[in-house]
């Protein structure tokens, strides 16, 4: 009798332990639902202003998703690719070239694009010089100085390289007295305005914003070349992220212009709304990358 009772007690305990062990698993979501969403942002010229804009969006999303949403500024363009590889980020707002790289190399999912206050979601690369310079085409560029933005930008590096290559300039060290990276689109524009570089490349949205703030800029700079327009910013997410969370996030972003709280957050974020993104939109970036691949390989060797 005693042994039967003992046996029942042991069995009961075993079942209890088993149930206790299984209970959290049963209560937990079936997939990888994080308690926090960590999203990277590529740095802009004025990061304080940028963080302020994104803070309002983070607060709105956190309120809607009921999880903590944290935006982190990556140290430079293209860093998102490395951080995704280390699985530290759930997503990132990426510019065209890193987006294309991320889609190709990391199989990320492009989720949404913000639409700017002017109703446009795209940006173009511009190549420009001072109006009072004697440079009016690629032939006049030999021996001059050129400023790019960052090697991980489509508008500030990939496109100008393609432009130069199409005009027979395939060696930056040989063809220019100096070339360097300004680190931001605004810095590249200011460098040419100040005369610190003869030729510059930057994206149209920053160019137009600065020109709207200071109308003399359009009179002082002459645009020599324009790249195809591609979506400026894309929120990309890692595919392993919980499907429910991804779906909820998409819905929240795509409909936030339909409620007053969302409209307020969008206004502070300086966007009209978000629209669905598609991987095919980046084929133009891929084509540019393919075009300048020999130059990129050469630059990679030098690094």
């Amino acid at each position, binding site marked *: 009798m005693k042994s039967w009772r003992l046996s029942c007690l042991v069995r009961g305990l075993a079942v209890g332990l088993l149930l206790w062990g299984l209970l959290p698993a049963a209560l937990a979501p079936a997939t990888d639902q994080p308690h926090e969403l960590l999203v990277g942002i590529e740095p802009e010229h004025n990061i304080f202003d940028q963080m302020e804009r994104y803070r309002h969006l983070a607060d709105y999303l956190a309120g809607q998703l009921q999880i903590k949403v944290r935006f982190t500024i990556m140290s430079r363009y293209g860093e998102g690719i490395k951080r995704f590889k280390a699985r530290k980020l759930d997503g990132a707002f990426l510019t065209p070239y890193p987006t294309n790289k991320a889609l190709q190399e990391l199989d990320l999912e492009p989720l949404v694009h913000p639409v700017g206050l002017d109703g446009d979601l795209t940006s173009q690369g511009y190549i420009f010089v*001072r109006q009072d310079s004697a440079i009016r085409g690629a032939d006049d560029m030999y021996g001059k100085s050129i400023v790019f933005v960052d090697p991980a930008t489509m508008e500030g590096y990939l496109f100008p390289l393609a432009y130069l290559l199409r005009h027979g300039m395939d060696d930056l060290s040989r063809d220019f007295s100096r070339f360097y990276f300004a680190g931001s689109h605004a810095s590249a524009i200011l460098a040419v*305005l100040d005369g610190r570089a003869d030729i510059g490349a930057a994206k149209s949205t920053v160019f137009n914003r600065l020109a709207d703030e200071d109308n*003399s800029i359009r009179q002082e700079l002459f645009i020599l070349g324009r790249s195809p327009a591609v979506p400026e910013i894309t929120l990309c997410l890692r595919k392993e992220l919980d499907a429910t969370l991804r779906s909820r996030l998409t819905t929240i972003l795509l409909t936030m212009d339909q409620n007053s709280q969302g409209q307020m957050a969008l206004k502070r974020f300086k966007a009209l709304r978000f629209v669905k993104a598609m991987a095919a939109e980046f084929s133009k970036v891929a084509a540019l990358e393919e075009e300048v691949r020999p130059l990129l390989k050469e630059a990679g060797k030098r690094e």
Partner: protein
Amino acid sequence: MPIFAKLMLPILLVVSWALTGPAELCAAVRIGVVMTGDIPYYSEMHETFVAELSRQIGATEKVEFLVQKPFPNSISWSNAARKLIAFDVDLLVTYGWPATAAVLHEKSAIPLVYAGVHAPNHAALAGRNATGCGFKVPLSSIVRYLKNLKSFQTLGVLFSSVEEDSVRQYETIKVLAARQGIQTQKIDIRSRFDPEQLKAIPADAVFIAASSLAHLWIEEILALLSEQQIPAADILPHAVESEVLMTLSQPPQPQGEMAAGMAAQILNGVAPGKIAPHTFRETELVFNLEVARRLGINVPIHLLIEATRVIE
């Protein structure tokens, strides 16, 4: 031989030896130099010029420099130019536009190399037996940076009506400021008493043109501006201890080097018309944070990252 003749003979021999002595003791090449004003910008340019020219032709030629640093006014520039032309120097070198204009006005056959000229109109000098280099600082950037540093309505412009290039700078900045809704206030510096105007100037910020007269009394000018908490921006470089808040300038050394290269070519027989003139456009942006603190100005980080140099 009379005693007088005995005494005079050695004296005459010494004098005649000195006058007809060995050629190597006399300068083989004489270069006449006219600076628009005795200011550090031109002096540093000239130091580089001398060093570079010695490097290029020093081993084969002995060079004598006759340097004129007249007080900046048209009569003095003209006198300095005439004096050097009368000396029949082999080459004339000028720093700044007024000195260059004074030499060109004399229509001498002596070749000319100019440097330190702001926004030179090289085309207008073609066929004048002259070549040279200058610099161009975008004045719009001065207005842009000042606007980002401080909200202001009136920009004082220090220039000199006797220096044609500084007048052009005043006129240019007046147009640029007007486009931004900013008024300009002329401050014409012609004599040492003119900086006194600054005691009652209704300006929120001041731009200093590349005027030799303004830079002759720059310390007094900056002290007066500092007393009134008025920030100043200049297109000529300043020493670290200066009271100027911001400079956007072209360093003098590259122009000195290039002018020396041009001079060496001319001395080797190349006609000035065959040597392409050049305008330097690369600038250096310097913010003085110590001055900014004294003026109560917080230089935003996005401006600081644009600076070539920050003085703290």
